[in-house]
């Protein structure tokens, strides 16, 4: 039964990395999934070269969305805005390193939805 809920997923859920808020974020973003109440709040700070220097998130939701957000924040540090723009759904799912059935994709992609909303707002 626990094949999907592998240890690293459980661990990220129980001990989310980069939890909290930033002092001076450049990019602030929210994802709201009305179907299950998953919420991811993502904050990024950029360095002078336009790369992600600091990341933080808070949220509420299922294990998949929270673990995915936690793993995602670890991945984001050091990436350029161009890297973030190019990020695909499949790449985000691959970060989880666990089989994601179609019914859970939305949960796993919640942090990407937040990031994309944040990038859009940042460009404006």
């Amino acid at each position, binding site marked *: 039964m626990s094949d999907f809920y592998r240890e690293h997923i459980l661990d990220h859920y129980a001990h989310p990395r980069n939890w909290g808020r930033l002092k001076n974020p450049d990019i602030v973003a929210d994802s709201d999934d009305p*179907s299950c109440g998953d919420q991811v709040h993502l904050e990024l700070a950029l360095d002078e070269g336009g790369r992600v220097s600091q990341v933080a998130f808070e949220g509420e939701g299922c294990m998949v969305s929270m673990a995915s957000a936690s793993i995602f924040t670890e991945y984001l540090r050091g990436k350029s805005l161009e890297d973030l723009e190019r990020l695909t759904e499949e790449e985000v799912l691959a970060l989880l390193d666990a089989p994601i059935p179609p019914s859970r994709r939305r949960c796993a992609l919640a942090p990407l939805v937040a990031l994309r909303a944040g990038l859009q707002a940042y460009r404006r």
Partner: protein
Amino acid sequence: MLNVERIRADFPALARQVHGKPLVFLDSAASSQKPVQVLEAMDRIYRECYANVHRGIYAFSEEATLAYESARDKVASFINAPFREEVIFTRNTTEAINLVAYAWGRSHIRPGDRILLTQMEHHSNIVPWQLLAQEKGAELIYLPITDDGLLNLEQLDNLLDDRVKLVAFTLMSNVLGTINPAKEIIQKAHAVGAVVLVDAAQAVPHLPVDVQELDCDFLAFSGHKMCGPTGIGVLYGKEALLQEMPPFLGGGDMIRRVEWESATWNSLPWKFEAGTPAFVEGVGLGAAVDYLRGIGMEAIAAHERELTAYAMERLGSLPGLRIVGPPAHQRGGVVAFTFRDIHPHDLAHLLDLEGVAVRAGHHCAQPLHRRLGLTATVRASFYLYNTHQEVDRLVEALEQAAKALGR
């Protein structure tokens, strides 16, 4: 007592394995499985006499028309409608409610009028009335529920006055399972001159429903929750109301005579059935009615009552499991719950891996979940083909899920 083993043999999908485990299907409140009798009735039309219904002057069309229209007779008799013309085929419950909101509502609701709903309604019995109220400047008011998930009937008298023009409520909640005292509500609504629509999407598949005994003005339900196919539902309406209502959708089949500038309407029920209807599905629904009647709605309701009581007892014994809604004797075969701090989506996912199919989320009742202080629940729902062993499998899977997550 139902012969559940024999019933299960009629439902091919129930024999399947999922993730290497025998399927335990506990999501019939969303949509039920289909017996071969229904599949064969539809298959027969496609294979033997498929042609568009009404007005075809040849044998195939006449046979298809006869099959479709006799399904209407079966449905009328099933809910004890006085006249077959009072049974309008729609796509589903949602479309039936929208039909009333559009055709009756737009010609009867005026600024300042009130529409009374309850806090336990499905989105399909909220949103059509919001659209109508916004358009007409009318007001929606809600009959509250108690913390036990029952309608607060003491409040009903306070809310009902001559400003209330329509009362719309569910006969059985799709989340709480609550079976509402419909006759009493309808009597009180009629006493202030309100028209009453009953959302019977959960009731008609599971309980004996008699529209004359209820004395409701409109009643809506779906075929796919009662062993029938998707794409076919029913609006029952009292003839006098349906007669004076303008049409819903315009098109073929709903007209009598069309001029360049205007048209006159076909008689009931076809006035409300524009375009080629889902007549094969209609025949399927007729077969579903035959199937359910052959077993007996009283017997089905009794089986589900017994199974629900058993499920609530077993689930209630799990530490940290919270069931929402009233005790077993006040509800139908729906049990929604939360389990420890496990998110309902994670729980449903883990249950699925054990072959147990349940629904997780807000079940199209977000305002109700907010009222309960929850974002989501897991819902197990039962039908005539479910067994005590399946309830045991659900409980075992929950215990395993908690273990897997270290909760």
